[in-house]
């Protein structure tokens, strides 16, 4: 076997192992910047993320933050939160927003952007997928979820 071929094979093996390893280490975190820093349960957060609720318990409108089609976590987020594909998740959110049931979500291309936005805006709730707990501000609640 030629050398370059061998090297290529070894590299691919290592990357896959890294991805598996990485996948084996990643965690879905729901980030919640609830109004008045109220504690929010995982179910309430998921309900907001799924568009089943429009507002926080306080009545303030919630802003859902989701990974865009360009994000690596697009499909995974759809699978973890909606148990469906990204396309379906997008169609679902479109129908909900079109029907006037919920406010329009925000879409970001990376987790860092999602975290940064949620840290900044009260009333935001979003999803990131990382192997380490994201670095959030004091008012943001991090809810690990599976």
């Amino acid at each position: 076997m030629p050398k370059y071929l061998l090297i290529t094979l070894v590299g691919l093996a290592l990357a896959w192992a890294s991805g598996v390893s990485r996948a084996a280490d990643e965690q879905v975190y729901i980030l919640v910047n609830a109004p008045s820093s109220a504690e929010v349960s995982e179910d309430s957060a998921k309900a907001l993320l799924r568009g089943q609720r429009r507002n926080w318990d306080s009545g303030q409108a919630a802003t859902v933050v989701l990974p865009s089609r360009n994000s690596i976590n697009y499909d995974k987020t759809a699978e973890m939160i909606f148990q469906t594909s990204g396309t379906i998740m997008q169609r679902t959110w479109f129908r909900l927003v079109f029907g006037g049931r919920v406010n329009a979500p925000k879409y970001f291309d990376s987790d860092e952007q999602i975290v940064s936005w949620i840290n900044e805006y009260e009333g935001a709730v979003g999803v990131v997928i990382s192997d380490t707990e994201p670095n959030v501000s004091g008012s943001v609640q991090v809810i690990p979820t599976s």
Partner: protein
Amino acid sequence: MTRSLLFQFVGLTAVVTAIVGALLIYVVPNGQRQELEASATAELSSLAAAYAVSVTSALEQEDLEALAGLNSSVRDDPRNLTVAIISGFEDDAELFAVFPGDSDVTTADIDSERYLVARQPVSTTILEGTVVVMIETTSISQRVEALNTPLYAAFLIFLALQIIYARQLSVRVLLPIIEAGGIADRLGREDYQGALRKHNRDDEIGQLASSLRRLKTNLRLKNRENRRILASLEDTVEERTAELTKALEAKDSFTASVSHELRTPLHSIIASLDLMSAEQQTKENGEYLVIAKRGAKTLLLLINELLDFQRWEQESVVLKEEAIELRHFVSGIGSTINTLFGDSDVEFVIQNDLPSPIWVMVDPNRLAQVLINLLGNARKFTNTGSVTFEASALQDSPIDAEVLFAVVDTGMGISPEDVKRIDEPYFQAAEGLNRKFSGTGLGLNIVKRISEAMFSRLNVSSEVGVGSVFDFSIRLAKSDAVERSEALLSGIRDKEAAPLPPEQRRFLYVEDSITNQLVMTAMLDRLGVSHEVVSSATEGITKLRSERFDVLITDIQMPEFSGIDLLDWVTQDAGESEGARVFACTANANTDAIAEFKAMGFQGVLTKPLSIEDLTSFLKSLG
């Protein structure tokens, strides 16, 4: 003009009101609806396009905020818009999303009449379908209905104005015109009574009313004037009529007098000549008697012609028809006329081609008068050659016959100019010859009148120096069996001539004329009649009451008391002569006079001049 104009006006007003009502209540709202729908459709199309862009952006670029913004504007729109996204097409089409979210719209509603829709296709990576913007048509209807209220109000106002206008026009224009029409109609029927209503108006109606009032006044005055003139004319007419009547009465009286005064002496002359003829005479005296009798009879004929002409100027010819056998009648006329030709060089030919027998109804005296006149004229104006008397039946049926009579002569002839005037009264074609020929010139005029009375027409054709033809045809009804038998019996009685059976009755003759007394006495003696003669009505009544008489013959025109007075006395008290038969004897013997005498009570009329034959017939008729 009147009622129909009113009805036309009312009808027109109703039609206009109906048209305006239809416009305001139906046409305008419908137009408005169509405009609103068109406008709405355009807006919906525009909105659908905006939505299509926004949906595409939202799905492709994950920009859902713009979509939310559109929804806000739709939510705020008062027209109740609904926006739906249909994924798929045709049989695969299904409702993907709808705003507002609680709307119950289904895909079936989109194509229904309930909604006005605009569509715009959408094609993205995650969705292919159609954006549909919808508006319920009821919202347009509501807007249209909102417009109706002012339209209804406008219509009601218009209707009220129409009613007011119609009433004003009727009261101020049409009714005055109707009234004026009625007034004009009354004036046309010369009804000038009744006051005219005053119209205190200075418009055309007021002027019309004033004009009518003036017209009425003028017409009433004119009518009054006309009545006055008419009354005056009627008075004048009455005067003239009275004068004319007086003149006619005077003329009639004169005619009657003349008739009496001429006929009475003639009666004596002819009767005396008849009596003398019966006596033995020398040959010379016999010839003189013939000449004298001929002259007297000619004079009588002329007098009768004059009297006939005078009478027929005022009244039409009256025909007394009886049944005659026409062929025999023609033969008789021929025999009578034949005597005129005597020793002359002129030949008289009778061409009687009538069938035998031919019984017809005709006035024999008048027909004889016509034929004798024509034949007499032909004899008078023909010196050489011949005179032919023709009679033939042009048509003969059981009901009637058309008979042609013609007189053809070879006489002097008549010029065409004179032919046209031949039947003028008093005209003789030979006048230019210093009246070479005798006669009054009335004969042909009389012939013309008689022939016209018989519904015939005298035809004349002539050539100077060659001769003339006078002809006429008449249609005569056939007589029936009863009429023929009466004629035959009458003929038989006529033929049963003298001698009379001995006259047992006693006659009284009342006559103021000595001459007539002598003549009548001679005739009665000749006939063996027992009689007496008196000269006045008073003598007559004295005689009648003191002695028995069976028959009274009285003259009419007598001094002091007339024959009519005598009749009255006899009717009141005839004394010994109770039941005597009274007869008038008069020269005034026209039809009316005879009828009048009989109406007075005379049983008959003897006409002067009387011949012995006349007297004989009279005695036979007494039975």
